């Protein structure tokens, strides 16, 4: 089966004006504005199959959102090609737009003063959804997202999380095959993040829609995405299963040991990253793990030992702060 999303050497550069402070500079910039060219996305290529949930990782300004925006037809790339569902996104054919949608966690499109249900009617008209189909979809989404009571209240009276649920519901009324979610859980509390995550997963299972997701919260990515794409400074750094990402970028293991002494010096075995009472946390190079473990067993009175990968956030942080 051909991939739903095919991206080849996608590049987007922005012209950014350079402005200096001072009256002289302000006057000068009237006549002679200086620009620098910034590559937001550079030579990015990947494929995505139908039904996949793919997480985009990267620090702020890495180019995740820019990539998503090009795929949803909002931005024209500077060079490179992409097809989604067989369409070139930035041609913005109505036929294409009917099969996708995008939700941005920091931008809400539902009318502030009116209940979400009213704005849904608008989407129905725009996407030409037949009445019975609209009812059916709305019913299903209301069940999944628990919207029933929310749809009749003016949006301004809803909490941020409730609003996000309504936004998601509205975005899915026309049953898009491909969804772009840009920071869908931004600013939500932990319970609400869970709700949204559960919803995305079950929606994906039910309808086999392809979902491209960016999030600051590693938990979102870890819970939803088997596959991650790491973008850093506009370039693709990694594309593959989440577990592999850790294996590839974290050449260390983390050992948590419990001893009978609170002042043991484990410095010669590895790096002590935490020490609390009888519990010690050590980081050791992956290939030394077996050796260190046996030395610990031989030389200390161990009551417990656990060997783990370092936390994923930390791995990611290392990737991004390296260089």
């Amino acid at each position, binding site marked *: 089966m051909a991939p739903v999303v095919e991206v080849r050497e996608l590049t987007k550069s922005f012209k950014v004006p350079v402005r200096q402070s001072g*009256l002289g500079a*302000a*006057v000068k910039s*009237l006549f002679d504005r200086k620009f620098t060219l910034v590559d937001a996305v550079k030579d990015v290529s990947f494929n995505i199959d139908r039904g996949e949930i793919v997480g985009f990782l990267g620090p702020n300004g890495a180019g995740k959102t820019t990539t998503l925006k090009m795929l949803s037809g909002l931005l024209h790339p500077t060079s490179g090609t992409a097809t989604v569902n067989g369409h070139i996104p930035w041609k913005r054919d109505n036929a294409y737009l009917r099969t996708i949608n995008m939700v941005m966690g920091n931008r809400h499109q539902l009318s502030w003063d009116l209940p979400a249900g009213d704005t849904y009617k608008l989407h129905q008209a725009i996407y030409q959804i037949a009445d019975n189909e609209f009812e059916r979809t709305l019913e299903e989404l209301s069940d999944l997202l628990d919207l029933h009571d929310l749809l009749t209240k003016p949006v301004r009276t809803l909490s941020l999380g409730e609003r996000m649920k309504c936004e998601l519901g509205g975005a899915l009324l026309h049953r898009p095959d491909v969804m772009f979610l840009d920071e869908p859980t931004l600013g939500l509390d932990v319970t609400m993040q869970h709700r949204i995550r559960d919803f995305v997963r079950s929606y994906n299972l039910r309808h086999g829609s392809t979902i491209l997701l960016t999030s600051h919260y590693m938990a979102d990515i870890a819970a939803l995405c088997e596959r991650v794409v790491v973008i850093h400074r506009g370039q693709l750094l990694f594309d593959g299963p989440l577990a592999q990402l850790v294996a590839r970028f974290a050449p260390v293991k983390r050992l948590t040991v419990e001893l009978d002494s609170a002042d043991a010096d484990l410095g010669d075995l590895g790096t002590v990253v935490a020490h609390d009472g009888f519990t010690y946390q050590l980081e050791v190079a992956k290939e030394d793990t077996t050796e260190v473990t046996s030395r610990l067993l031989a030389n200390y009175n161990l009551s417990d030992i656990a060997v783990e990968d370092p936390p994923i956030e930390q791995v990611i942080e290392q990737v991004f702060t390296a260089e």
Partner: protein
Amino acid sequence: MRLFRIYLLSALLHLKEHLIYRASVLIWLFSMLLEPVVFMMVWRAVALAEGGSAGGYTQGTLTAYYLALMVVNHLTFTWIMHEYAYRIREGVLAGQLLYPLHPIHRDVTMNATYKLLGLVLFIPAFLLLSVFLKPEFQFEPWQVLAFLPTLALAAAMRFLMEWAVAQTAFWYIETSSFNQAYYVATMFFSGRIAPISMFPDWLSAVARYLPFWLGVALPVETLLGSLTPEEVMSGMVIQAAWLAFFAGLVAWVWSRAVRRFGAVGG
């Protein structure tokens, strides 16, 4: 001395600000320029239809009137009342209240620098239109001399008047109707629709005592020589009286406004 230093520094700051928003500034200036030009064309058409003159004005003197009015109106107008509701709503005013300085000073320098900058557009426009439309100016030295104090009084008086009007935003957040009423009044009575002598006599007689006419048309007519020295003198006296009145009004309204602002919050 302290105030002078503050004025100088904040003038530099505002000048820089205006330059950053140069596109907006240019647009506003352009719209200020267009209004008198449209009325000039209407009245020139009237004069032409009436065989060269209407209400004592010829095409040439009408042109002179409106060209002078264009510059004078630019030099005396303010936009504060259109901004004040926004300032209160968006917390700009709350920020200003933290300074140990009356916010009016900031508006003085902001206006002054804006006007200075505006002359960069208005003087060329004035010269260009003069070349094409051939205004008839007859300057007597005393007219030019008297023009300057009437202009200064007009600017100060109008500034205080509009600053006082702007304070209504403390009581009515929906100020657009009030501002529109003020606008219509100035259009009629300040000589922007037509030189005030074109109105019925009783109306123009009343208008000469109103701050609208005194804030725009008095300097214009002084410069053009359509007023006698006695009329100019009495005009200046009335200007000064209004100036004192509005200064008092600003002080009074402001003290109440601040109290109200403190009570209801921004």
